[in-house]
């Protein structure tokens, strides 16, 4: 059960953490360092 919860939370955190790799270069210019 703990593993399932952890996996789900990691799944939901994914887009936030990986956003610098997802976005297009134009979108990212303002976000230096954040």
């Amino acid at each position, binding site marked *: 059960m703990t593993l399932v919860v952890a996996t789900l939370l*990691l799944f939901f955190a994914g887009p*936030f953490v990986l956003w*610098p*790799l997802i976005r297009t270069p134009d979108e990212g210019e303002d976000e230096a360092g*954040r």
Partner: protein
Amino acid sequence: MILAFLGSGALLAGLVLAAFSALLSFWAGYAENGVMIQVGRRAFYATAAMILVAGVLLETALLTHDFSLAYVAEHSDLSTPIALVAAAFYGGQEGSLLYWTLILGILGSASLLASARIGLRLAAYSAGIMAAILTFFLVVLVLVASPFDVLQITPPDGLGLNPVLRDGGMLIHPPVVLAGFASFAIPFSFAAAALLAGRSDAAWIAHTRRFALVAWGLQSAGLVLGMWWAYHVLGWGGYWGWDPVENVAFMPWLATTAYLHSSQVQERRGRLRGWNFGLVMLAFLLVVFGTFIVRSGIVPSVHTFAVSAIGPWFFGFLGVCLLFSVGLLAFRAGDLKSHAEPAPAVSREGAFTLQNLLLIGVIVVVFWGTMLPLVSGMLGQQRVVGPTYYERAAGPLFAALLALMAAGPLVPWRHAGAPLWRSLRWPAGAFAFLLAALLVAGVRSLPALLGLSLALAVAATVVYEYARAAGRWRLAGGGWSRALALVMRRRRHYGAYLAHLGLAMLVLGLAASHFWQQEKDVTLLPGEQVAVAGYTLTYAGVQNRELADHSELVAAMSLGGQSLEPARATYAGLGGQSLTHVAISSSPIADVYVVLAGTNGDGSASFRIFVNPLVSWIWAGGAIIILGVLLGNAGERRVGVAPVAARVRSPVGAS
């Protein structure tokens, strides 16, 4: 039950994210890959969010009395007032570790957000080191000391919080002191990152100064609140017992005090570079050492948590941090040599250097006093030192530090000339005045004479500096807006002086209450009186009171028109554990402190009565120190940082 799964799941997800953030940040920093540095940072923020989720879940479990969780059942019960149930979050081993990790996650995230443009490697390595520290704490929380462990059988009620912790002090002292401990990791991370990145200039100091000051301010507040709590709760008439747990909170404070002064020498004169790195690392190592001491139970103390399995983990962590710090300093030793010209002995930098050496001396005294039971125990016969050791060994060092506090702020940078000797008249005059007055009053104790007179000299220096500022303000034409502008322009300066003034008040309170405390043990029948140090108390009689979670035997006393109610509380739900409740009548001159020792069948009651001069000055001094920290921190100006364009090859994430 569901809260337990959600909580442990959040901690596990946090652990994965923290380890990912640490590994990725180090690699991305090494490769100077801006995009991956950003991913590493975001993983750090996500880790902090997971810890926050775990924290909210634990607090929810406590407030909803979910006794299926072992932590909730062991540290709260149905009868405890709700505010104290909420405070049980940090009242036990596992919860306090989670609280610590949460503060590190939040402050670490704030420091990373504030450091978006400090250079790729420095940004990446600092995130990596903070994430590595978080990883360690999360490993402990997941594997060894989880606050979300589930009991096989859910009890109808919990065991409740330790009676000593059932006090208003529980709501403020532990969270502040634990936050102080956690915050030392931030300057450490940036210092180690600067060394890893080969950046030994003052940029890391300018960036972390605010966080070092936050750590110092929190620890100052934590220490004073701890003294206040001990004084109000423990009933021995004092506030500082040189207990190992007090000592391990005091040592990082001393190291950071040294750093806050010596860092100015690097900013102004480019000297003491290696020393500053060493001090910041020492402060953090002392925090880890202290945590190991407190949480392993290897040194006897009134504060220690129950002996648990986390001791070896913290010992290992201490070893890793020590090797990492010493190795890093040795690796970069060549870059840390100062090329600036040597400073003359009588100069501001000379005063700071001497102050640093004295503070290190105090740390050595306190460290060995704390370690002696352990070391002597290993050698055969356990020995414990008492307050006398600390007073004799550290007393002269404290006196020299006070003398430096009085003279140092008046000594100019680089060299001292005739104006110095003229300005020194003020602290010297204050010192001589109080010394003479005390001698005339019959005081012959050298520590009392020196402690009080030097504290007044420190205050005189601060007043002199503020008077000079007021003079400049009058010359400039006066007015509120100009006064505010003057203070804000040199807020670091005036904030520091305010902290000095607070410390002088605190020392006056410490010295007066230490040297002139009066104590009397009496047994009185109702209506009888006793006089202690000019205060007359009348015993009125005893009565029993039933409260929500305990009963109280109150022996009322009257002091002038005031009623004092010392009591003994008995907690039936905790196997009849009893605790004394002290009654204190406080004034700026002295506290009358009454402890109920016991009651007898004939209606008489036994009391221990203390009269403690100037104790309230300690608390007022602590509050002024915090005001000084707030003023010094308000709208920090960056010193010694090159323009962004010159430092950052490309903004983080622009590649």
